[in-house]
């Protein structure tokens, strides 16, 4: 084991210990809760939206599956592009931002990539459990030409796990990823450019909404699946950014992943080193 490598191991161990004192210091700061009453209002709104869309699920499915809509090359292309940007794009873009940000020592870029990717992963895991549990049939399973016609009420607990992906409609995974990334980007960037809130927010959430519509256009999801996916993604993105920047700004994970730096090595590739001092903090914007 080289002395250089031993030093890195020691530095890593110290980095995991140092935040204890930093946390003790942060305890003296006023505690900012992760969840607020506004979250309850937002969750209630999303839930009401999901329930309200249930009766019109079949209406949207019918109108998006007309031959005119489905044989439109432009709609098909847009649908493919936005779907790919959401998944796997959200992971690829987030991961790339993090790596490039670390390599070029641009903390904001690394921060955006890290928290965006964390949001997408957390939201996707949660959505995956719901998909397996609710076991809702996708719209294409019972089309209008079927003897039963469209059946948006075909749910069965646990069927997503036993019968496969055709019964994992609720919630929409692509919408979850798109809204998680949109919420993380919107919440991160508003800290840097508060005046751009009404430009970045609508652009990001509008793009995420387009992903949801593309999933309905492809007959993979009902409208209510998309609404619930939007809810989960939005909450995940919002809470990840709030947790790391306001509720727990001295998080060990953040210090480890953002306090370390990637630098080009003399023999090619990159070296990974850690700073023992806490990483500089960007002042949080109070909302």
């Amino acid at each position, binding site marked *: 084991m080289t002395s250089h490598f031993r030093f890195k191991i020691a530095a890593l161990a110290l980095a995991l210990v140092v935040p204890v004192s930093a946390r003790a210091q942060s305890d003296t700061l006023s505690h900012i809760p992760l969840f607020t009453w506004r979250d309850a209002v937002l969750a209630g709104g999303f839930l009401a939206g999901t329930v309200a869309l249930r009766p019109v699920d079949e209406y949207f499915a019918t109108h998006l*599956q007309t031959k005119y809509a489905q044989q439109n090359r432009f709609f098909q292309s847009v649908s493919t592009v936005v779907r790919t940007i959401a998944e796997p794009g959200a992971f690829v873009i987030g991961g790339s931002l993090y790596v490039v940000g670390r390599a070029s020592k641009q903390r904001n870029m690394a921060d955006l990539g890290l928290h965006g990717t964390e949001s997408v992963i957390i939201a996707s895991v949660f959505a995956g459990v719901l998909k397996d549990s609710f076991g809702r049939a996708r719209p294409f399973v019972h*089309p209008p030409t079927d003897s039963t016609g469209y059946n948006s009420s075909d749910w069965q607990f646990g069927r997503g796990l036993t019968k496969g992906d*055709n019964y994992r409609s609720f919630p929409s995974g692509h919408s979850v990823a798109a809204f998680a990334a949109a919420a993380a980007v919107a919440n991160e960037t508003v800290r840097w450019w508060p005046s751009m809130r009404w430009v970045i927010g609508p652009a990001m959430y509008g793009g995420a909404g387009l992903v949801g519509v593309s999933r309905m256009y492809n007959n993979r999801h009902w409208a209510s699946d998309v609404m619930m996916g939007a809810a989960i993604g939005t909450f995940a993105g919002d809470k990840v950014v709030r947790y790391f920047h306001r509720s727990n700004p001295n998080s060990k994970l953040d210090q480890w992943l953002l306090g370390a730096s990637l630098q080009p090595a003399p023999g090619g590739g990159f070296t990974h080193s850690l700073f023992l001092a806490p990483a500089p903090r960007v002042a949080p914007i109070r909302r």
Partner: protein
Amino acid sequence: MKPGIVIVAELTGALASSIHAVQERFDPRMAAELPPHLTLIGSSGMGPISVHTATERLREALIPALEAVAPMTLHFEAPMRFMQSDVVVLPIDPNGPVRALHESMAERIRAAKIVTERPRFTFTPHCTLSFYRELPQSELKDLLAMRFDEPFAVDAVQAYRATSPRGTQRILELKLNGA
């Protein structure tokens, strides 16, 4: 044909013969490549499978997907130009059991980490009547006026490997055995 592996449901009986005759009349090159069929994997929904994929590996991936699928009866709608192009196809309803079959196979192929190309369009199953030729207006009008209304059964799928522009080889046939 572009190199790659496609999974199709071959048409059979009198319907297949009449469609083949139409293909020979309007696009002999295409008619010589494959018998009349619906493409289930390798066009829309999921792109062609890598030509280097071993037949056994593909078979192992597909068998679980086909176990629960029952034979199905489908019917063609009126011929149309595919996505506003010069390609003329006989479309079928893209949803229901045929879509479920496509999605099940696609899921297993992805799970088996078999390499496929990205599709340009969502799953839009059809039987192609004319592909290579840019038809004159009069011929296009004749083709679009044809009808193939009788229902047909799909009870098996076949995999074809295309290794050169003019060479295709059937490498696999699997029955739909579900109840």
